[in-house]
């Protein structure tokens, strides 16, 4: 079965979102020229108090129009220049509006490209129309347009590849978002396509048809309804509701596997060579659905399409679109490396953080990529045995460890705050936006406890789904959750938020020394009145222990320190963590053996876990184990190296 006869994209008959931007699109693909000829009717609702006279549209396919666009110009893109500068003519893409009319008006709309971000005249990624009839507050705008979209050879997930593979992303004129900024000012939010740009759009309905050569298999956002055959063409009806974008794939050589989870029809498109991976991919996405349904909120859509791209279309992989995600795998991928599962889980999680919670992925990418990475790690942890990600020849890595390390091993972890805009995180986008955010959330979860954290995120989801949540919406639920908790950082909410979100501080607490000495003798009268007692020079057996702790970084948060004495007794104290050097002193009958800052590893942002503890009884076994292992492997290297000598 390629498509359903009836197509109900969500479980709800009522709108789930405000449906501010709706698109009726009829798309006809020219498989040879890699083009689509489109007819769109866009209906937009003016939810602002302003009268709208100009309307900007994203024309992101033009990011791949020449080598000097704001996305591809030297210095902006990290892609190899050879892949950009030496592209032949047919490998460039573009999108052009051929005609545009406002409903009821016979004159064409005046259009011009604008460059609100950098003024780059070679960049045509935002197109502005002057409206003939302004749209009053609460009014509707209806624009009909025709356009031609030409795919580039695949670049940044969009494009055509060998064997008729076509991935249609950013391939239609899409209206910007008219909203209030943080200062309350209304205006259009419609950025040019800059590095690391992804999605920002209003929720709405996308309906229409896709006309392709009959041998093509089609996958798309939403659900596919009726399929008509007209000569050597097939026309697919599609419908996606309450989504922020629409993407589709067409390729003649894709197999289809269909499954379901609860109310969701899962449709996996994959190359024949990946038939052995189908179970892993479907299993992974079901794990994600199960977890997010329980810990965040319900998935209201009735479909999910997964593209596991063929090798020649692999550049289209690793991405998320509404109710349509792309993975990335390779024939024979070992089961002990769960990157393909992890990836599918990551992309599915974007259905929550990007799609339903449609934060501005350009200006606040941490609100989706960071959150998605966090949940990817949680889902892997809940669904698979440790090590969740890699288990090869004793080299074991779990997702949550990998994510933390991507942040703490950055050459400069202070390079940018989490809340930076997507094009303003130089060289450390993944480490900061994805990994530091996820590690911050792990820290928060560990301090709050899993149940309270889940409740916090459910509240965040319910309060903000089908809208454009911002930092303040997240901060609001964090403040609420932390203030209700009995965590030792409950009194440091603002400090935690400002340091983790705005700050670039590095967290590194350390225990640097433990010294046990015989306690100074106590002799003479102590106390007053009836409590006055005489102590003779008999302090033998009392030990004075001094523990030196340091704050090596500039991140400040209260931490728990656990002390363990030789007689087995323990004590936990909370240190405010403010001083750069601080000493704890004890006088007991037993020697202090060890001290450990943050023994439960709540503070995942600490960049050096090893110096968090100090013990006078070091475990030399671990050192011997690795020293002996080194000896063994050096022997093996020596033996292998001299085979031909």
């Amino acid at each position, binding site marked *: 079965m390629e498509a359903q006869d009836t197509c109900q994209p969500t479980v709800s008959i009522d709108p789930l979102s405000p449906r501010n931007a709706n698109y009726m699109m009829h798309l006809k693909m020219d498989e040879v020229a890699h083009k689509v000829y489109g007819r769109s009717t866009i209906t937009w609702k003016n939810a602002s108090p302003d009268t709208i006279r100009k309307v900007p549209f994203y024309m992101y396919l033009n990011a791949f129009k020449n080598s000097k666009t704001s996305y591809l110009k030297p210095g902006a893109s990290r892609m190899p220049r050879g892949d950009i500068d030496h592209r032949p003519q047919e490998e460039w893409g573009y999108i052009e509006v051929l005609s545009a009319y406002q409903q009821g008006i016979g004159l064409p709309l005046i259009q011009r490209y604008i460059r609100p971000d950098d003024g780059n005249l070679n960049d045509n990624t935002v197109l502005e129309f002057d409206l003939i009839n302004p749209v009053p507050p609460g009014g509707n705008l209806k624009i009909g347009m025709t356009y031609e979209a030409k795919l580039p050879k695949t670049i940044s997930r969009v494009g055509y590849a*060998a064997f008729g593979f076509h991935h249609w992303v950013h391939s239609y004129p899409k209206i910007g978002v008219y909203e209030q900024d943080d200062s309350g000012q209304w205006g259009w939010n419609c950025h040019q396509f800059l590095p690391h740009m992804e999605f920002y759009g209003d929720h709405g309905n996308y309906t229409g048809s896709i006309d392709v050569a009959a041998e093509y298999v089609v996958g798309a956002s939403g659900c596919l309804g009726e399929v008509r055959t007209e000569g050597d063409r097939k026309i697919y009806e599609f419908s996606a509701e309450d989504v922020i974008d629409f993407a589709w794939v067409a390729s003649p050589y894709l197999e289809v596997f269909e499954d379901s989870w609860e109310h969701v029809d899962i449709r996996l498109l994959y190359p024949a060579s990946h038939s052995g991976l189908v179970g892993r991919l479907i299993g992974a996405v079901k794990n994600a659905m199960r977890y997010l349904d329980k810990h965040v909120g319900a998935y209201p859509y009735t479909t999910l399409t997964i593209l596991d791209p063929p090798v020649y279309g692999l550049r289209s992989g690793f991405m998320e679109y509404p109710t349509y995600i792309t993975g990335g795998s390779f024939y024979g991928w070992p089961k002990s490396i769960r990157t393909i599962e992890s990836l599918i889980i990551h992309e599915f999680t974007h259905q929550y953080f990007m799609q339903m919670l449609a934060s501005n992925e350009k200006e606040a990418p941490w609100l989706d990529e960071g959150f998605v990475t966090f949940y990817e790690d949680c889902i892997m942890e809940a669904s698979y045995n440790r090590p969740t990600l890699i288990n090869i020849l004793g080299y074991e*890595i779990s997702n949550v460890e990998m994510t933390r390390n991507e942040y703490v091993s950055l050459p400069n972890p202070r390079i940018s705050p989490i809340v930076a805009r997507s094009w303003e995180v130089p060289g450390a986008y993944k480490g900061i936006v994805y990994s530091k955010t996820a590690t911050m959330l792990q820290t928060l979860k560990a301090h709050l406890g899993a149940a309270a954290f889940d409740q916090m995120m459910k509240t965040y989801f319910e309060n903000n789904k089908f809208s454009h949540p911002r930092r303040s919406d997240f901060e609001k639920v964090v403040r609420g959750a932390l203030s209700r908790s009995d965590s030792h950082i409950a009194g440091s909410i603002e400090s935690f938020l400002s340091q983790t979100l705005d700050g670039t501080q590095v967290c590194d607490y350390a225990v640097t020394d433990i010294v046990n000495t015989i306690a100074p003798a106590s002799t003479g009268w102590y106390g007053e009145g009836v409590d006055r007692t005489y102590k003779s020079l008999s302090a033998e057996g009392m030990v004075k222990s001094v523990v030196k702790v340091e704050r090596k970084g500039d991140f400040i948060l209260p931490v728990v320190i656990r002390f363990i004495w030789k007689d087995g007794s323990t004590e936990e104290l909370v240190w405010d963590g403010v001083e750069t050097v601080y000493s704890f002193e004890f006088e007991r009958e037993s020697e202090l053996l060890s001290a450990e800052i943050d023994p439960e590893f709540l503070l995942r942002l600490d960049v050096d876990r090893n110096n968090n503890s100090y013990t006078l009884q070091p475990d030399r076994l671990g050192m011997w184990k690795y020293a002996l292992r080194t000896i063994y492997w*050096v*022997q093996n290297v020596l033996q292998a190296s001299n085979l031909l*000598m």
Partner: protein
Amino acid sequence: MGPVYLALLQASKRWRLILLIYLFQIVLALSLGLQIYGVLEASIGHSMSLRGLVGGFDYTTIQDLFNVHGASISPLVGMLRWCVISYLLVTAFINGGIWNIMWLDDNEETWMRFWQGGAKYFGRFLLIGLIMNLLLLIWTIVVWGWYVSSFFNMMETWFSDARIFWLGCGLLVVWLHGIYFLFLWTSYAKAYIVSTPGISVLKLLKGGFQLTIGRYIVLLPKVWLFVLLLLLVYAILFLIEGKVGITSSGLILVFVVLQQLIVWVKIIHRLGAFQFLWNDFNQIRGR
């Protein structure tokens, strides 16, 4: 199995040689292993994270160690390079001694013959070894250079990644058989060096090459048997380690013994391979 078993048996009786080779290896390996111990002790010696290393592989502990103390560890990589170079030179000498003993008398093994052979053949063995390693480098570039440099192009233009995968597997088999060829060649060349005094380098290379061509297919099953035996030993250790885990001082001790036993077995295995090819060489030459 007969000739392989015989060769391994002959090799296993040369315990003094085995001990000598083992000592060279362990001294070089210890120089690095003890450094690792020293680095660990100086950097995280008092940390309670070390417990995680005893229990298994702890990615966080290891990565934080590298992130913070990487500068102390990276010189050890350079040191390993020097260890390998030193060992290659030592091997040229040791192999000279081994082949001299095999040439003079199968059963009589004296230190004198070993040292004499080492000194006598060091230069030529070293030269042959360097030539063969150069050929290995060329062979590797020939086999893998195209595959690696064309990999992304194949990904974009080939219909199926299964074909790319199986091509890689096929090339691996071809590459390994090339190494087998070079191993036969270097071994027969050494046999010529010890059995034909004064033979020129060109002639011994030519003789070794011709003999390798003639014996390549005939010996292939037996050499595979050698390889499989070795892989079996590794697999057994790997399985045991996977099941039991190295989590206590007793187990560390047990696995150290097992690991060193494997190193010992590999030395016997290499000597056995030499002996096997020497026996084969003699059989062909009617000695």
